[in-house]
């Protein structure tokens, strides 16, 4: 039985590649990053967006999961030379690869999420992670009176520091004398997929008194969520809505509506008439970032907490609260 599915997969693969080399098609393409398509987080959000687009429009798209860094250039070049349009890429790791290839394929429209590449045929989408993280930080501080709050990031890069910095400011906005524990699972891309180390970091933070930990670590974050659920404490998910993973333990999730961004890109970026190159910032306005509230965590967030956090959100939108963005000066004044 397994053998037959195996052969089917093989023959399917051969048929597909024959099809791809045969005809140039202007279908959109999506390249996931190293965390993997089903990381229940950043990449899975993109996949969900692509699937939603497929359902709405009946169109087809191609996608590809990277296995290692060396495949980036090769994967992007393959899609571009096959005529895929637009090509959507996930993660900040694309900057150096995309810049030369965008010049080489001037007729292809590229959309890159979480990175900024300055070229006439590239749309760079950035999310205001700092403001969304600010809100979940505020919720963490309202939920726990321990005075110590944890943060576990994936790879130690400026983007993840941006999450941390927003989160820390949110915590301090509610509890000015709070102590923060800041950890990262590693310094290589493998750090996105290391739940065991992330779980150990969470245990260490619990031992230091943390009752809530925000995990901004892609696939590694699952280890944090599991550890906190085992210990009967709270965690905060990231990118996708991860509340359902451990109901009663995941306090909320810092949602980045990557899915909406992918739908938008698939719908409009393929046609030069509707394609908007340049840098686009998606933030609290339009709810592109924010805290997730659903049936899995509605018992954890009281009406009072929600009204307080909504008030903070209104103040950020009106400019009354300025959330410092780590990436403007690579520092996090608290």
């Amino acid at each position, binding site marked *: 039985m397994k053998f037959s599915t195996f052969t089917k997969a093989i023959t399917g693969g051969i048929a597909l590649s024959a099809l791809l080399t045969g005809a140039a098609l202007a279908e959109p393409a999506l390249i996931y990053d190293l965390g*993997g398509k*089903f990381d229940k987080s950043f990449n899975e959000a993109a996949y969900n967006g692509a699937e939603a687009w497929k359902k709405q429009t009946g169109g087809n798209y191609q996608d590809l999961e990277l296995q290692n860094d060396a495949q980036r250039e090769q994967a992007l070049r393959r899609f571009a030379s096959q005529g895929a349009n637009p090509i959507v890429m996930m993660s900040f790791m694309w900057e150096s690869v995309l810049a030369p290839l965008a010049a080489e394929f001037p007729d292809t429209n590229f959309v890159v999420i979480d990175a900024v590449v300055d070229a006439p045929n590239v749309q760079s989408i950035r999310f205001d992670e700092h403001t969304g993280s600010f809100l979940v930080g505020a919720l963490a501080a309202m939920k726990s009176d321990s005075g110590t709050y944890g943060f576990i990031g994936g790879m130690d890069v400026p983007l993840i520091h941006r999450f941390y910095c927003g989160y820390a400011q949110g915590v301090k906005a509610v509890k000015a004398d709070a102590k923060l524990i800041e950890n990262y699972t590693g310094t290589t891309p493998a750090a996105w*997929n290391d*739940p065991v180390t992330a779980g*150990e970091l969470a245990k*260490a933070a619990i031992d230091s008194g943390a009752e809530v930990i925000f995990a901004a670590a892609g696939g590694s974050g699952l280890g944090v969520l599991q550890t906190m659920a085992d210990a009967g404490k709270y965690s905060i998910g990231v990118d996708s809505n991860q509340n359902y993973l451990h109901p009663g333990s995941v306090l909320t999730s810092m949602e980045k509506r990557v899915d909406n961004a992918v739908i938008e890109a698939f719908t409009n970026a393929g046609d030069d008439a509707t394609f908007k190159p340049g840098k686009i910032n998606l933030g609290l306005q339009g709810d592109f970032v924010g805290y997730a509230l659903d049936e899995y965590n509605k018992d954890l967030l009281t009406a009072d907490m929600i009204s307080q956090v909504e008030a903070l959100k209104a103040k950020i939108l009106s400019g009354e609260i300025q959330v410092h963005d780590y990436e403007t000066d690579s520092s996090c004044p608290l």
Partner: protein
Amino acid sequence: MDMGAILSILDATLRLSTPLLLACLAGLYSERAGVFDIGLEGKMLAAAFGAAAVAAVTGSAWLGLLAGIGVSVATAALQGAAAISLKGNQLIAGVAINMLAAGLCTFLGQQWFRQGGRTPALGPNGRFGTIDLPFANEVAGVPILGPIYSELISGHYILVYVAFLMVPITAYVLYRTRFGLRLRAVGENPKAVDTAGISVVALRYQAVIVTGVLCGLAGAYFSIAQGSGFGNNMTAGKGFIALAALIFAKWKPVPAMFTCLLFGFLDALQIRLQGARLFDVEIPVQAIQALPYVLTVILLAGFIGKAVGPKAGGVAYTKER
């Protein structure tokens, strides 16, 4: 640093050394019998996948453990067939096992569960819980020894206790039983063993199977005790660190335990030192994460002296014609 912080580091040390110790003892059996095994990593990974997959489907951690051991023993037998019966190069057989396991686990995981090679998250019965030893709560109030017993020694996964129990058992088997004597002999001078009328091939197969069982325990520890489900490459090079520990310990069980505890301790320390400050300057994360490796090099170069492995290691045995 107070008592609580020290206990919490030592507690993490036990958790982090367990898979190293199991893999290290696994390698010890195989290498003492004259079969170099750099396939520890692959066998652990295969076991981690087998255990998580079966635990996810059946919802039973014990069935998962059995499956993990089964997969690992089968992989070990395959490696044994290549290295012992077919007289292939032992190092290459090990590398092949590592590559096979890394690719096959992800491929099968994707075919069966459709979650990008990951297995579904396990429910409470699909994982081993922690065990509280008797009287742990009662003696917690006793000064010094109380917290050591209740926090450090009690409250671990069952596989942690199994791993540390395997140390005296291995020492006994190796130095006090007929099997152990023959095992050591076959790694030093297989011709003498053969002359005495004992089958070198059969002995080496037995050793490799024991290696498989222990790697199975180590792999299952990753996916159904410490973790909750299989993730791609989740063993993260621990098999190679175990191999280094084995050389470090000069292929002896009790030193192997201390070496693995040292590596586990450095790892635990690294996790807790993140964000630490020295003279008001924050130590970079990269420096702290490199600490275990730097110390390993220093210890290896400075303290251990010459490590000489079993004399017949790495060579397939051929009877004279």
